[in-house]
């Protein structure tokens, strides 16, 4: 379904941790019995003394991460996205309230988890995390951006950070020299008629949709909003002013995710219609990861359909899908 070369974001994470482990002796990594899946095991094998497998005990992992940070360690803690959410309160009280430099890097987010089904396909995490004071939220689009985000956090990251990675490999969209900047969006394609703002793998869908739209005479701008909090307000306002219509696409609930954040900014600064494509107040489902996008009306064709809808004589969001 996806064109171009794909690479694993979690492999990139594990490898980058190993590289950084040599550079920073105070870097420590925690996991909760999923290290061979989250790929923190790559770090663990290289630096067993600085790797702590806390067992299937996420609350213990998060509180321990806080204690390590309070004692001067640079901390990365990983598990599947859905399981970190059970520690919301540990994150709130012990990490965010203390404003500690703890990096939560989660894998297996969204519906691309696939066959494991609804229990493991969290589509609420970005919203839950964005609401936490002090917490910053990033969703890398590919393996290159993943490495850049992890480098940034290890070198200059301040306060608590949440980074959302996937189980599936995602298409490589950035070139080698790309550098992630927290709070800055990245424009992949310019366009004047409409702006499609994407998060995660849906950015690559948006680029494919933009090609199809071009053949239909619609010139779509495509933006990768990998920094969800802080969000790039300027890029959003500029898009609203210059293209007059915004479509958001995310492998997440349309409630409290990218679409909501974008709509907040446009409402405050330059109101234009914002149409949101994503999970609509529903749980996921077992199936192949890529099949599920069509099942939930979140595929390339759906992006095309929704974007075209903006240009109907009487555009109506509720007609979609």
């Amino acid at each position, binding site marked *: 379904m996806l064109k171009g070369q794909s690479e694993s974001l979690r492999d990139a994470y594990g490898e980058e941790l190993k590289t950084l482990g040599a550079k920073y002796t105070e870097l*420590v990594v925690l996991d909760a019995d999923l290290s061979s899946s989250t790929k923190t095991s790559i770090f663990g094998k290289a630096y067993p*003394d*600085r790797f*702590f497998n*806390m*067992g299937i*005990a996420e*609350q*213990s992992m*998060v*509180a*321990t*991460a*806080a*204690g*390590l*940070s*309070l*004692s*001067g*360690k640079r901390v990365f803690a990983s598990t599947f996205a859905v399981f970190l959410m059970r520690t919301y*309160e*540990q994150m*709130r*009280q*012990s990490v965010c*309230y*203390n404003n500690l430099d703890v990096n939560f890097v989660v894998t297996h987010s969204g519906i691309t988890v696939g066959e494991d089904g609804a229990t493991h396909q969290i589509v609420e995490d970005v919203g839950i995390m964005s609401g936490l004071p002090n917490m910053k939220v990033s969703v890398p689009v590919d393996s290159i951006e993943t490495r850049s985000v992890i480098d940034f956090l290890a070198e200059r990251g301040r306060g608590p950070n949440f980074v959302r990675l996937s189980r599936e490999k995602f298409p490589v969209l950035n070139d080698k020299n790309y550098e992630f900047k927290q709070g800055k969006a990245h424009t992949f394609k310019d366009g004047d008629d409409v702006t499609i703002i994407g998060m995660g793998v849906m950015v690559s869908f948006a680029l494919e949709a933009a090609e199809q739209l071009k053949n239909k005479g619609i010139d779509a701008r495509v933006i990768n909003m990998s920094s969800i909090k802080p969000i790039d307000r300027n890029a959003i306002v500029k898009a609203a002013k210059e293209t007059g219509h915004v479509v958001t696409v995310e492998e997440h609930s349309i409630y409290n995710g990218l679409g909501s954040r974008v709509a907040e900014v446009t409402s405050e600064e330059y109101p234009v219609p914002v149409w949101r494509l994503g999970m609509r107040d529903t749980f996921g489902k077992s199936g192949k990861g890529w099949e599920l996008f069509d099942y939930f009306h979140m595929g390339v064709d759906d992006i095309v359909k929704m974007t075209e809808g903006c240009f109907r004589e009487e555009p109506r969001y509720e007609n979609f899908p």
Partner: protein
Amino acid sequence: MEQYKEADLKNIATSIRRKIIEMVYSAKSGHPGGSLSIADILAVLYFKEMNIDPLDPTNPERDRLVLSKGHASPGLYAALSIRGFFPESLLSGFRKLNSKLEGHVHRGVPGVEASTGSLGQGLGIGVGMALAGKLDSKNYHVFVIVGDGEIEEGSIWEAMMAGSKYRLNNLIVILDKNGVQLDGYTKDIMPIENVKEMVSSFGWNAIEIDGHNFEEIISAIEKAKKSKEKPTFIIANTVKGKGVSYMENNPKYHGAPPASQEEYERALREIGGEE
């Protein structure tokens, strides 16, 4: 540091108790019961057992205390101020706007190691601090005070497993076993009658003491410091509201100040000590 004798510790505990009552009465809110029950333990920790220096509160070699039962903030704030971490005059700002003395333990207060208040998290924080001590080959000890209602939280037992796995002999937990929680008596709310066996089976040293007997508190901590491999769990049998007759063993005073000027004066009179 200065050597405090048992008679000094008794006076210090009395001062802590007086300040607890003054703070919660002034704030018209707060948690006196579980603060009064740990006053003797705090006196021993801050004036005898912990290697700390109020003039150098972030020294990497210092001992750490995490008050996991963060609602006992009046007790901790009182102990810290008497020990010299900040002026005692600041205590009157407790729970009020524009004061650093948040209702529950807050890291912005000098001498406080970690903000706490949601139960069951401080022991995990202590595990992290103890792990860091091991990684850095430091000799400091990490103390964590937990409540007996608090150990109903599953996260406590997650942290107990981790403490045992990583052989954190630099980690010392003190359980304030006062038998009372917000809704009533722990034996009725969620009975845990065999704590000693439970913590032993988790691979910890278990020591049971009278939490109001200075000699026993000191000797338990000294023994814990000598542990070669295991972390230590000290079960301190205490009286909730200790020192104020109408508060003792009374769930009402888990989270309520003296109800009147009369009750306030009576509490101070019973505690004794100097104004």
